[in-house]
Structures are given as structure tokens and as C-alpha cells.
């Protein structure tokens, strides 16, 4: 009897079909596109890239697949999470879950963790692997199968793994930044069903306008904007790197730099965490979670 793994299993059992489609369809379409589609590329770009083209194509397809699936998964999860508190109310199965010996805290926290962190992370990994397949097809089509095998994997692999690792490590950080907004929405949809989202959005919008105009306090809008900005920075940092590549060796050299750059960027994102804004946000998020637990304790009343 193990409650937390079983709660995770529940999410898998309930959503596996949707998740499979969410990963399979983009990858499938992508594969079809690179295998049979017409790709428009600027001819001077091709000249610039020269012999480094296969490497760039491989990198691009792996990165694109991974980030595309990651983005789709994250967006889907966010949408799903906004309805999380009321999801078992339509078929009244919430009463079934409440009749089981599982605490309110794990029942609420596990789905949040699964959808906001595990699912996008898994999607990223699936996208990565699928991207390798896409790169095989694309590079083969452009430069023949041999070119794919003679790609500088020694530099390519660490670079892609470092990139993926950067995003995966940044995901929990970004989630921390977004926690107050997400938890507020989850709480308000618990209290007010579909109106919850509207109330939070209007509340923030109207609240910031009122605070700015009437009290000269732009705090709310600035805070929300800062939260969003820092969340984005947690995933991919502020470092901008110019990469001009004219030859395979140059491409390799640049690739070898990536792990170091990724690590430095991650460090920068972690350093952002030491901020009173984040602390305030986490307190708000914790408060919302506590109210959510209390709502569930009352038997999740006012359903229907």
C-alpha cells in the first residue's frame, strides 16, 4: 500500500491516452514533414552554413522536437491544472476518492506535481528521443545517411543533454515563480467553479489598475510581470550568445561550449531565487494550498 506512487499511477491511468496523442501526433507530423515536405531555406544561409549544415539541422530538429513537445505538454498541463480542483465533481467520483484512506494534502499536491513538472519533463525527454529520429530522417534527406552517422556526436550529445538538463532543472524553478498565480486559480476554481479563472484574471487586472491609478502603487502589476519574467528566465536564461558557424570544426567548438554555458545559466537562474518577491509569492501559494486543503476537508461541499 503506497499512496503517493498510486496517486501518480492514477494520473497515468486517467490521461495516458491523451498524453500519447499529445506526443505522438506532433512527432508523427514532424516526421512526415521532414520526410516528404518541402522545406524553404534561404540559399545564402545554406552557403553560410556550408559543411556545418548537417550538424545544424540535427541540432535544430532535436531542439525543436524537444521544445515543441515540452511546450505543448506544459500548456496542456496548465489548462488541466486550472480545472483540477473540480475535475472529479462532474461524475461525483470525488466522493469515492474522499472515502479512501488518503490524506487531503497528497491528494491535492500529487496531481499538481505530476502535471506541472513530471509531464512536461517526460514530454521533453520523449521529444528529445523523437528529435533524434527526426534528425536522422532530415539529415539523411539532405546529405545522405552517412552524414548522419558522421555527425559530431561527441559534441552534439553532451550539448543536447546539457540543454535538456538546463530546461529540466529550470522547470521546478519556474514552477516556484508561477506558484502563487497557479495556486490562486486552483483555489478560486474550487470555490467558484469556472468563474474562478475569470475572478482571478479580473482581480489581478482590476486590482493592478486600481492600485496604480488610485494609490500610485504599481506593485501588483509589476509583481505579476516579474513573476512571469523570472519564470521564463528560469527555463532559458538571459545570456545571449552569437554563434557564427562556417565549418564543421567551428560548429563542434561551439557545441562543446554549450554544457558550460548551460550550467552557468542555471546558476544564474538559481541566484534569481534569492528574492523577496519569490518569498512573498511562495507564502501566497502556501496560503492558497492551505485553504484548498480546508475546502477538501469540508467534504468539498457545494458541488453540483
Amino acid at each position, binding site marked *: *500500500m*503506497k*499512496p503517493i*506512487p*498510486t*496517486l501518480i*499511477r*492514477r494520473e497515468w*491511468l*486517467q490521461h495516458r491516452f491523451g498524453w500519447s496523442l499529445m506526443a505522438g501526433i506532433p512527432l508523427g507530423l514532424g516526421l512526415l514533414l521532414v520526410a516528404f515536405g518541402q522545406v524553404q531555406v534561404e540559399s545564402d544561409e545554406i552557403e553560410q552554413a556550408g559543411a556545418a549544415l548537417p550538424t545544424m539541422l540535427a541540432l535544430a530538429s532535436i531542439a525543436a522536437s524537444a521544445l515543441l513537445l515540452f511546450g505543448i505538454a506544459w500548456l496542456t498541463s496548465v489548462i488541466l491544472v486550472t480545472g483540477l480542483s473540480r475535475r*472529479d465533481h462532474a*461524475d*461525483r*467520483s470525488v*466522493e*469515492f476518492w*474522499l*472515502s*479512501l*484512506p*488518503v*490524506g487531503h494534502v497528497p491528494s491535492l499536491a500529487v496531481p499538481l506535481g505530476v502535471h506541472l513538472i513530471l509531464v512536461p519533463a517526460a514530454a521533453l525527454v520523449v521529444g528529445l528521443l523523437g528529435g533524434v529520429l527526426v534528425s536522422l530522417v532530415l539529415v539523411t534527406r539532405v546529405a545522405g545517411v552517412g552524414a548522419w552517422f558522421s555527425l559530431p556526436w561527441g559534441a552534439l550529445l553532451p550539448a543536447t543533454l546539457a540543454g535538456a538538463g538546463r530546461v529540466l532543472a529550470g522547470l521546478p524553478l519556474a514552477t516556484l515563480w508561477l506558484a502563487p498565480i497557479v495556486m490562486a486559480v486552483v483555489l478560486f476554481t474550487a470555490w467558484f467553479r469556472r468563474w474562478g479563472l475569470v475572478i482571478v484574471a479580473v482581480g489581478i487586472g482590476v486590482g493592478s489598475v486600481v492600485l496604480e491609478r488610485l494609490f500610485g502603487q504599481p506593485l501588483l502589476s509589476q509583481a505579476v510581470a516579474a513573476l512571469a519574467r523570472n519564470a521564463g528566465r528560469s527555463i532559458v536564461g538571459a545570456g545571449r550568445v552569437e554563434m557564427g558557424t562556417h565549418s564543421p570544426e567551428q560548429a563542434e567548438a561551439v557545441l562543446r561550449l554549450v554544457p558550460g554555458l548551460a550550467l552557468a545559466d542555471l546558476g544564474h537562474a538559481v541566484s534569481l531565487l534569492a528574492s523577496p518577491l519569490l518569498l512573498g509569492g511562495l507564502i501566497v501559494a502556501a496560503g492558497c494550498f492551505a485553504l484548498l486543503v480546508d475546502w477538501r476537508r*469540508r*467534504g468539498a461541499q457545494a458541488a453540483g
Partner: protein
Amino acid sequence: MNTAITDLLVEARALTVRYGAKRAVDDVSFTIPKGRVVGLLGHNGAGKTTLMKALVGLARPEGDLRVLGLDPRRQRVQLLASACYIPDVAILPRWARVEDLITLLSGLHPKFSAERARQLLRRTSVGLGDKVRTLSKGMVVQAHLALIAAIDARLMILDEPTLGLDVLSRKAFYEMLIDEWCDGERSVVISTHQVEEIESLLSDVLMLNEGKLVLSISLGDIDARFVALSHDAAVAEQMAAAHPLLRYRTGPGPGGNAAIFDGPPPAHVQALGQRVRPSLVDLFVALTRRPELDRTQF
């Protein structure tokens, strides 16, 4: 180990549950020893569901309540590990397959036996691979009951478990109830509208009316305390004059009248009719359509 296991599985004293200004459960006191099958009877809105929710920690009661020696509010998870609760039989998650529910229950309930569940399901028309969404209402009920019966609990709290079942399935459920749960150590609390059917299974009855407990008695004591007299229409006036709880007809013709008294009526009144057994249904009607009666305690 739980050192608080006593022979009284449920102890309630001055239990009240308020929803706003309304008292859904009003100053109710009773105990449930082990080895009993307790029928919780009452009209819709009488407070049965609220009382059951209070027993499993899903309502905020005032007063004292101990279930299996635990405080249902504060020790809800611990309590539910040794008790099982069906709040309604139509609440299985519709997206799940039956096999999924077995997997989930195995991981979430310490006393659930997957093998037992599969064994019980084999006796029904429900397949392991069926999605709950595709099952008819009766089959959902059968599946839910089979899953619950696979839990080795000391206290079973069932809110209208036979709703939507046909006669054969109800019979199978009653057989299962007797076979599995009547071992003298467990107790079952069951609310139902099929009062006639279930009367023979019960050992005790709790009757609620508008939140108040109007009767808390064992079935054996009913025969001792309540007197039902079957009489002719000719003596109906004299019967009425003795203030019975209820007068009703038992059948067509002049002899088909009856009256129920709480406690023995005077001897001359008893001589007017023939003593019969007060059925639970008639007692229920008698006690729940007269709300001004005092709470009767046992």
C-alpha cells in the same frame, strides 16, 4: 497496534451537525457494538447521509463522536483504513476500467485484497476490462459492491447500497453481507428505503426524523416494547380512544385493521384485538409522521 479497540465500534453523544442555521443532525446519541447490522432509517433529508458523513470525518459535528476508538475528524485517514464507506453507489470514476480501480485500491487501501475483488467480480456480469462509463447503472453498483466487499474492514458504512439493483442482485448482496460481514466482530451500518426487504437482516435500528433520533433499539426489543393489535372495524373507535401511535389497514375486509401502541395498552383494549408483530415499516411510518413525539432513547 491500535490500543483503542473496544467492543463498541461507534459511540456518539449529543452529536449535532449544523449547516448554517439548519441542524441536519440534532443532538443524537447512540452506540454501535461489534457484530451488529444496524439499519439507519429516515425520510429523505432526515439526516441519514449527514450522520454517515460525520462517522467518516466528512462533516463538522459538535458533541462527542468516537468511531473505532478514533476521532473521525482528526484521524480520518487512520479510521478509513479500518472502515469502508460507500457514500453512494453511482460514484465510481467514469474514466476508469474496473481493473484500473483494482490497481488503485490495492495501492490506496491497506486492507483491500485484489484477488478477493476479482473473485467477487467473477460472480457478476462485470468484466475486468470494462470501462465504468460503459456499464449500466446496475452493473456499476455490482462492481462497486464487489470492490468494497474485498476490503477487510471492521465497520461498513453503506448509504443506500442497493439503489438501482434488481431483485436478484439485491439478494446476492444480502447473501454476501451475511456471509462476509456477520462474523460477530464486524458491524454494518446501512441506510436503505427497502425497509421490508432488509428488516430480517437487521439486528438493530436507528430511526431519524428531521435530524432527531426517534428510535434506537434492537429488533428483539421491538417485539417486547411495541404492541400491535389486529382488530375488526367494529372496535376501531375504542382502539382510537386508547391513543395508539398509528392506526392502519393490513388488508381488505372488516378484519383488516391494526394499531400500534408504544408499551402495552390497557388489558380491555388488548382483548379487543389479536396481538401481531409490529413490522418495521409500520413502526417507521408511526414514528416519523409525528414529529412532535419526544425523542425515545434506549
